[in-house]
């Protein structure tokens, strides 16, 4: 069986400036892959190419058998099958929590109001926020908003989840409530690709770790290997890890 | 469908030029007067004296809530009367003066808001520093605050003046021979009203568009 997400020699330019260089990797079904690297290394851009939020100019990306770069691909349909969680949560501030959970289920998947509501509230309960269903995003803390965002993505019954630095905009005391939800999700066998600096999370649940620098994938190896012998890592990865792991 | 014939525009050019000169003269005087009065109003508005700031606030709100055309029409009737009361005898004031007064007083309300925002954007420390050097309020405003504020708000003042340039065409209402009115009457005389109207539109467009392009460039330069 082929992988859930496959990237082959993906390159991307902004004008003359190359932001991604020949990136290749694959995420198998049920696998959790953590992508890390210094800021500006292209990791956020890379994860956004997977659901075509960022276009790329060269290479190929296959998600569940569909080619992302193919102009014939129905991108909204493809995106609806992949959940995504953003650094700044990106809940829709003009909609209540319940509406945030149901709007895409109704308008994109065509689910009935009742079904969407039931499903949304089910996941809201799972992230521990059922009591806040009638509130608006601006009334919740950052950590709560990010948990709602995860519930919103899960309500669409995604085949895989993309996380783009889900904890880096959070106050330190709120990081764990979000990570706990993500760990639980990983244990349930969700396919996940996570851009994050949380090495504790990577150690706990990742299958593989990808290290990026200057738009290229420098390391792509099993978690045990990545954290096992730091000295065996590339110089740039060592430098990055030494900074990150101090915290 | 009718065809257009622009052949009569050439001979009419000197007359049109006279109209444009009047438009620009009105604009220039109205801008100078409007900015001057607007600055006074802005300073009144920012003053701690309740009466002054209340009066300025009422003035600004009042003129901002009525149409310019109403002011032009009213002043056309009223300014001569006021002159008469002041001087005791009838003086022929003329449409130009009454329009100029109308524009100055009306635009002052808009300029006042721009100047107020400009002055408020200068940090309070500047005023304190000026006082600390022994300056009076008048000196601090004239030498320190207003020069900085005017530099900052120059693009907005110019933009408002471009709008005023277009609005001067409203003097048509009282029969003043500005550029638009000249074009209208020349066009009627030679039987080509549509051609002269198009010409007027093009001339206004070229001047306004050109000027706002320059202002936008200035804005970018100032932003750096």
């Amino acid at each position: 069986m082929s992988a859930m997400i496959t990237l082959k020699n993906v390159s991307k330019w902004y004008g003359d400036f190359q932001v991604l260089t020949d990136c290749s990797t694959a995420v198998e079904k049920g696998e959790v892959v953590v992508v890390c690297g210094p800021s500006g290394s292209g990791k956020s851009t890379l994860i956004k190419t997977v659901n075509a939020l960022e276009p790329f100019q060269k290479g190929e990306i296959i998600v569940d058998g569909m080619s992302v770069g193919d102009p014939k691909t129905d991108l909204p349909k493809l995106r609806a099958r992949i959940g995504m969680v953003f650094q700044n949560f990106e809940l829709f501030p003009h909609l209540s929590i319940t509406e945030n959970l149901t709007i895409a289920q109704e308008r994109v998947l065509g689910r009935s109001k009742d079904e969407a509501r039931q499903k949304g509230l089910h996941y809201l309960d799972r992230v521990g926020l059922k009591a806040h269903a009638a509130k608006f995003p601006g009334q919740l803390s950052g950590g709560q908003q990010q948990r709602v965002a995860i519930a919103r993505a899960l309500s669409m019954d995604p085949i895989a989840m993309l996380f783009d630095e889900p904890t880096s905009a959070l106050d330190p005391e709120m990081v764990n409530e979000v990570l706990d939800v993500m760990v639980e999700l990983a244990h349930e066998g969700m396919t996940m690709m996570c851009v994050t600096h949380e090495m504790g999370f990577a150690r706990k649940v990742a299958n593989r770790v990808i290290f990026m620098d200057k738009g290229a994938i420098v390391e792509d190896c099993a978690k045990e290997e990545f954290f096992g012998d730091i000295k065996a890592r590339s110089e740039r990865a060592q430098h990055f890890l030494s900074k990150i792991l101090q915290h | 469908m009718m065809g257009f014939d622009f052949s009569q525009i050439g001979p009419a050019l000197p007359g049109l030029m006279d109209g444009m000169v009047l438009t620009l003269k009105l604009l220039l005087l109205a801008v100078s007067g409007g900015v001057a009065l607007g600055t006074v109003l802005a300073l009144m508005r920012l003053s701690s004296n309740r009466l002054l700031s209340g009066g300025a606030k009422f003035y600004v709100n009042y003129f901002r809530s009525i149409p310019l055309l109403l002011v032009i029409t009213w002043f056309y009737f009223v300014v001569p009367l006021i002159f008469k009361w002041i001087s005791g005898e009838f003086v022929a004031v003329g449409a130009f003066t009454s329009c100029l007064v109308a524009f100055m007083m009306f635009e002052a309300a808009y300029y006042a808001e721009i100047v107020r925002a400009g002055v408020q954007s200068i940090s309070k420390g500047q005023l304190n520093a000026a006082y600390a050097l022994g300056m009076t309020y008048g000196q601090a405003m004239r030498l320190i605050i207003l020069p900085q504020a005017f530099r900052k708000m120059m693009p907005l003042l110019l933009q408002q003046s471009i709008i005023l340039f277009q609005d001067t065409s409203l003097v048509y209402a009282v029969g003043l021979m500005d550029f638009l009115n000249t074009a209208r009457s020349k066009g009627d005389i030679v039987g080509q009203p549509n051609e002269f109207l198009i010409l007027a539109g093009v001339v206004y467009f070229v001047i306004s568009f050109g000027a706002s392009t320059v202002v936008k460039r200035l804005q970018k330069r100032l932003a750096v």
Partner: protein
Amino acid sequence: MNYNWDWNVFFKSTGIGKEIYLDWFISGLGWTIAVALAGWIIALALGSVLGVMRTLPNKWAARIATTYVELFRNVPLLVQLFIWYFLVPDLLPERAQIWFKQDLSPATSAYLSVVVCLGLFTAARVCEQVRTGIQALPKGQNYAAMAMGFQQAQVYRYVLLPQAFRIIIPPLTSEFLNIFKNSSVASLIGLMELLAQTKQTAEFSANLFEAFTLATVIYFVLNMSLMKFMGWVETRLRVPGMMGGAK
């Protein structure tokens, strides 16, 4: 001062039928409101479409909208009105010309011209506000909506526009007030709206101070009530926790 104030003038007969001067003002106000509201509907609809066009990735859509805005913003309102009232009818097919110039009453043809003129003129200004509102939203909102599988039209309808319109209520309010004030140009093509009736009263009754004072008061009160109304709309649409520079 030797002016004789006479506030009873408004209840005096105009000498035409049973009308008193106050009737003229009431009918004038009616036309002013009818012009402004109809023009506003055009301006809001067209301006929103143009504003959206200016934010689309499609270069041509953006270019068309930009050209529209520049054109309608840089030609004086009065010139535009003359174009709609005098020039455009001459360009119509013969039958439509006869209809416009002969079949319609003078008031109706003037009304149509001024409504189209003010609608298209104000649309350029509404467009700029809508564009500013959309561009003020964080880019992540667009990403998040797309990531959930919304089509582009849905992204605007459910996510971007509801937020953008809430942000721009204050500047839209001032455009709404402007269209009432600008409707006074209709007096220059013979429509008997408020200003024209004021002028007529001043000339007929010779009580010009009273006439213009009443007109000013009416505009002032109209302005204040519309502002109150829009303030009420804004509070009605306010979302808890949104606005006030929240990101």
